[in-house]
């Protein structure tokens, strides 16, 4: 018996990827949690911007949904204020807004109330006719994570997951609060959506500079030969915020820095820096390599956690004449909270490329400045020829650092030693800089613009897959287990500093020091 062979769909021979705008098919975007912060600050400004740049189809509509009762007109007014306020690096255009607003609709309803889904169903049917959206629908769950499973189940029960076109769902992190809950959530989602329809968003992967890591590594011939344990001494990934929890104390108290940043954003960044080259640059291959890398990260034993992971919590301080609260003094925070507002972890990747090379990751709130970067520290030259002749009299042990700056000033710099002018062989570190802003005058799309476009176009390259989420939970789970049963002597770093002393000691044990970004 032979199975019928389906002919492959014809690849459009007229497509011109060099010149044509990326084509996004007609669709409706349903945002659950539409009156929330994420919608106001990121989602609607990004959709407006894509509309402004004519990157999305004219056959497009947004259906906002949340508990607050509102008419379409009220929703449009509210979103107009938000877009005008939160639009990044671009002016607000009143005429464009009027046109965009005609595609905005609102359905009031509770995620727990089945009737709300009937209303959304009805609204989508109307929109499919009036806006000719071809039955394509992208659901965006911008709600409390505890509602994800329930909302997805309701979408299935109300037949919203099938229609004339494709159906996709975007889920915001956190994907679970530990390994077991992440697996449970995945099970629930898979009852309704196929993995190919699920877009788990990690906005760090949508940042231009994170995408540029792949271009930098695999588009150039000179770096990849050095990108291994033979030439690289260690890697430092820093994501520092100068602000505190800013009114999110209640949420943050449950999450903590390790869950909030390292389990998702920074482990994905590490995977991007360390992954093997994909054979083809497409969603499946890129994600396979990321997943493979995460699976190669050594999972700590519980008794290793104190040596390779440090938790911190900020205390009160006076910075620049201003009194800053400690975490425990923040509103809605337990005065005895054991939450980590700072986390630093040493990871090892057990594969041929990276064996025994430490990857240090740190993240924290109330640090001296807001900065996210990746520093690739290259090894020392084999012979210290100039060690007696530097200005300070000390040899710069490992002079070469490649810094990939993610925010705030995106760019890449390479530090190396150079001879100072004048007699004698005095060396001084200098920096070779590439700055995104000046080399590409055009504005970079925000991470949410990129990721929303990708989801509408069906490109999941920058979204995380179930196995990646699973692997990243596996590597932090032992730390969570140990920290969960430890009573810390918090606070252990004052606001406005680079974290607890134990973090410096963790690096010192490997003969390294944190750089000052």
């Amino acid at each position, binding site marked *: 018996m032979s199975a019928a062979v389906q002919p492959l769909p014809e690849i*459009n021979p007229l497509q011109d990827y060099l010149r044509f705008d990326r084509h996004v098919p007609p669709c409706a975007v349903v945002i659950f949690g539409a009156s929330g912060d994420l919608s106001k600050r990121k989602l609607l400004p990004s959709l407006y911007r894509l509309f402004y740049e004519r990157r999305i189809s004219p056959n497009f509509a947004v259906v906002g949904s949340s508990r607050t009762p509102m008419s379409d007109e009220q929703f449009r007014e509210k979103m107009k204020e938000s877009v005008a306020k939160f639009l990044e690096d671009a002016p607000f255009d009143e005429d464009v807004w009027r046109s965009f607003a005609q595609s905005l609709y609102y359905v009031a309803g509770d995620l727990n109330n089945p009737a709300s889904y009937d209303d959304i169903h009805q609204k989508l049917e109307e929109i499919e006719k009036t806006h000719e959206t071809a039955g394509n629908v992208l659901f965006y769950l911008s709600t409390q994570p505890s509602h994800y499973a329930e909302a997805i189940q309701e979408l299935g029960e109300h037949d919203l997951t099938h229609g004339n076109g494709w159906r996709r769902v975007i889920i915001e992190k956190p994907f679970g609060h530990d390994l077991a809950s992440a697996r449970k959530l995945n099970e629930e989602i898979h009852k309704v959506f196929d993995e190919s329809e699920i877009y788990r968003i990690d906005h760090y992967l949508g940042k231009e500079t994170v995408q540029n890591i792949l271009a930098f590594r695999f588009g150039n011939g000179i770096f990849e030969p050095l990108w291994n344990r033979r030439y690289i001494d260690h890697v430092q990934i820093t994501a520092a915020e100068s602000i505190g929890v800013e009114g999110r104390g209640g949420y943050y108290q449950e999450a903590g820095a390790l869950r909030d940043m390292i389990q998702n954003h920074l482990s994905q960044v590490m995977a991007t820096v360390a992954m093997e080259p994909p054979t083809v640059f497409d969603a499946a291959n890129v994600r396979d390599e990321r997943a493979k890398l995460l699976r190669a990260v050594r999972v700590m034993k519980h008794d290793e956690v104190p040596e390779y992971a440090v938790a911190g919590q900020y205390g009160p301080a006076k910075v620049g004449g201003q009194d800053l609260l400690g975490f425990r003094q923040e509103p809605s925070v337990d005065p005895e909270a054991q939450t980590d507002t700072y986390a630093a972890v040493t990871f090892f990747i057990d594969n041929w490329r990276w064996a025994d090379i430490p990857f240090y990751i740190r993240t924290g709130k109330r640090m001296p400045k807001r900065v996210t970067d990746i520093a690739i520290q290259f090894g020392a030259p084999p012979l210290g020829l100039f060690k007696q002749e530097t200005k300070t009299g000390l040899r710069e042990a490992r002079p070469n650092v490649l810094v990939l700056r993610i925010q705030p000033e995106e760019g890449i710099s390479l530090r190396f030693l150079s001879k100072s002018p004048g007699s004698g062989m005095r060396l001084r570190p200098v920096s070779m800089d590439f700055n995104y802003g000046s080399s590409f*005058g055009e504005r970079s799309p925000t991470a949410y613009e990129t990721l929303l476009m990708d989801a509408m176009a069906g490109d999941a390259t920058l979204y995380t897959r179930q196995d990646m989420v699973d692997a990243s939970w596996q590597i932090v789970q032992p730390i969570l287990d140990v920290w969960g049963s430890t009573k810390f002597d918090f606070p252990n770093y004052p606001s406005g500093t680079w974290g607890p002393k134990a973090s410096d000691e963790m690096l010192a044990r490997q003969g390294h020091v944190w750089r000052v970004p």
Partner: protein
Amino acid sequence: MSSAVIFPAQPEQILKGLGKLWTSLGQEEKHQGRPTVLRACAMTLIAATDEEDSGFSASQTISELMREHPSRGIVLAVSQQAERGVEARILAQCWKPFGKAQQICCEQIEITSRPENWPNIGPILIGLTAADLPVVLWCRHKAALSPSATADQKAGLLAVMNLATKIIIDTKGEDATQAIELLAKWRAERRLVADLEWTRLTRWRQPIAQIFDNPSTDSSFSKFGSIEVSYTDEKPCPSVFYIAGWLSAPYGAKVAFKKVEGYGPGLHGITLRSPSETIEFERTSCDCMSLRSTKGRERKYNFNDSTLYTLMNEELSVLGPDPAFNAAFARAEELLDGR
């Protein structure tokens, strides 16, 4: 900010002038105590103009392009008014990105020569291109396409062309046979040549291509074996052959050309025929194109104005080979030969 006239217009003098310009821009930084100016350069963009053009519109367009394509801009103008044979002027083009305090600046060099000095322009430029970066020549000099260009004009142009990694010309309004033959000759010399007449077709090509993005089986592009291209000029212009070449290249579809009355100049409409469907694209006004098909598809597309800025902006984004143009051009040559 611009300099006085630099004479003699020798590379060392001009580069010294640029050095001074950047030093003076840097002085502002010293006063303010923080970086205020960032120098940006991703290519050398040379605009070769002639007496009729006198460099003005090219200079203006290069200024506009600096944001997307920061470059060392060099405008070559030919004018009897260049009192000392060849003279130069340098200036900085600066802008401040939205919401940023720091200005981004690019340098522009304007070189004006008397017609008799034009053949000697090449050696000046050799010393002025930015090291290790692409050199794009935007050729607006009539000698590029005119069969009646003088030997001096041709020699000057050839010297500039030899520096370029990419040459951009515009065959709008030119005789198709002559223009395509000339481009074919340059391409045979392994020069990377682009034509703004091809760039103008993007607004036609994009909507046509989109129709075949997700086709049902019976309307896939391979089924459309017959193509008709209509135009409004007396003779078909290069863009008519380009679009025909582009549509015919994938499967070698037959092409018919037809002169019609209608909106133009140049390309007016395209009809694609398959056994089960006919799709027509027609320019219905100066800023609108309509789509009609026998299966009831109907749509209107707005044509945005193709300004020199928009065309150049697109063309500078494609610095390497352009496979779609290469295939279309090769087929256009065959169609021109009646094959």
